[in-house]
């Protein structure tokens, strides 16, 4: 089991007792070490782990909101810019209407009339 801990600050000479305890925790549990890493990268991550946010995101899978105004603005923008800023995936929050669909993004919903390659 790897004992390496990346991204943590080096202990100063005056490490307090709590800091020392925390560091002991990190050494003991790789899972906790991973948690520290995650929180360091995404400080705004919700306090409720695996709670309502994640579940609600799961329940809302497939939800597609369309705004013709947004769409036409995006079509105009695409001509000027190369790409639109992407929503940070790790933020785990999808704000309704924030992702502006571009003509390239919209999937072509065609039924699969092509036969499965497993049957080939």
């Amino acid at each position, binding site marked *: 089991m790897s004992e390496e801990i990346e991204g943590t600050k080096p202990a100063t000479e005056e490490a307090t007792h709590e800091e020392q305890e925390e560091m002991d925790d990190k050494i003991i549990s790789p899972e906790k070490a991973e948690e520290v890493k995650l929180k360091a990268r995404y400080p705004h991550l919700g306090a409720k782990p695996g709670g309502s946010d994640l579940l*609600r995101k799961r329940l809302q899978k497939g939800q597609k909101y369309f705004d013709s105004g947004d769409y036409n603005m995006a079509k105009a923008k695409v001509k000027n810019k190369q790409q639109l800023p992407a929503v940070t995936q790790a933020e785990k929050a999808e704000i309704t209407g924030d992702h502006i669909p571009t003509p390239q993004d919209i999937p072509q919903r065609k*039924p699969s009339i092509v036969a499965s390659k497993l049957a080939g």
Partner: protein
Amino acid sequence: MAGVASGNDFQWCFSQVKGAIDEDVAEADIISTVEFNHSGELLATGDKGGRVVIFQHEEECKNRLQLRGEYNVYSTFQSHEPEFDYLKSLEIEEKINKIRWLPQQNSAHFLLSTNDKTIKLWKISERDKRAEGYNLKDENGRLRDPFRITSLRVPVLMPMDLMVEASPRRVFANAHTYHINSISVNSDHETYLSADDLRINLWHLEITDRSFNIVDIKPANMEELTEVITAAECHPNQCNVFVYSSSKGTIRLCDMRAAALCDRHTKFFEEPEDPSSRSFFSEIISSISDVKFSHSGRYMMTRDYLSVKVWDLNMENRPVETYQVHEYLRSKLCSLYENDCIFDKFECCWNGSDSAIMTGSYNNFFRMFDRNTRKDITLEASRESSKPRATLKPRKVSTGGKRKKDEISVDSLDFNKKILHTAWHPKENVIAVAATNNLYIFQDKIN
């Protein structure tokens, strides 16, 4: 590894691989479910494109190289199409989430296939005779002028080339607000259950316009939502019993005789957790992605992100067996969270005699555990080891600093090559492993 026939160690070897070889995998070709029927004669696969392909086992005499015969395409059809619910602005994928076979009652085969919203009952039947000598139409099917008919004849049945037809017999729609994750046929052969994130419904196979809600865990205020249903299954021989698992790592067993609405469980299975070891990831990795009863009905198995657990239905406070699938991933949880792999839903399965269990992992690895000898093995589904009758070499992931030859380090694992779906033949040591868009079939060497 003990198997169905004897307690000897088995040697798994390659039998067949189905699907395209090319690197560019179309999303529609990704296999999303694999299931043998009750006799093992048929093997069904569903994919993200909403298609079902059924393979049939054919005897050895046709190809002397194979040990037990081959699986060849029997039927293929488009089960589900993509839909858009304009009222709710909801895109409904055509991906087949689950296929479950009905026990065979006559010469036709029936299966249930489901996507996120709609379950369909398909009848697969063979036609090898055709009627000839009709009175009212000629050989080409054109209608004959009735005034020209001067004599009558009795049509005769003539043999024809075998045709396998798949027809949708029932469509069970509009009963699920959330996404269906499981279907399970009851042992009474009359009813089946379907489960979504928050509700479980009981259906009668003959009735499509009504279903009975038996579990509802939707809170009055959605802000209070803390867990969802992740899988459900009917007991193999007690038609009043079913179980459902949750995203919090718990399993509830319900008895339909106790109440009409089974919101209150009969048994509650949960392994106590050490509070000091709790982390941000604890709940996510404890979420159960699959639950399967043993064939005997005495045990059930659950799969969470890192392990497989076997539970004795008579003991609720902890599992009787725990098997680590890929414990080395515990120190990679941060990056697995970032690339969403931590949410991958792995399935698990029993062998016919309940003496062994199998589940998938990453890098196209899959794992098997022998419950009697406690031995485990890691195998790989790859084109490289796909020579006929080639024995699969055990694989090993190195976790320490020193990597032995033939071992692979954790950082070299390909997390895009995930084996989520596997199936074990109900009677023989034949397994089907879905590796993205390819289906591998392996057999044991002992005949």
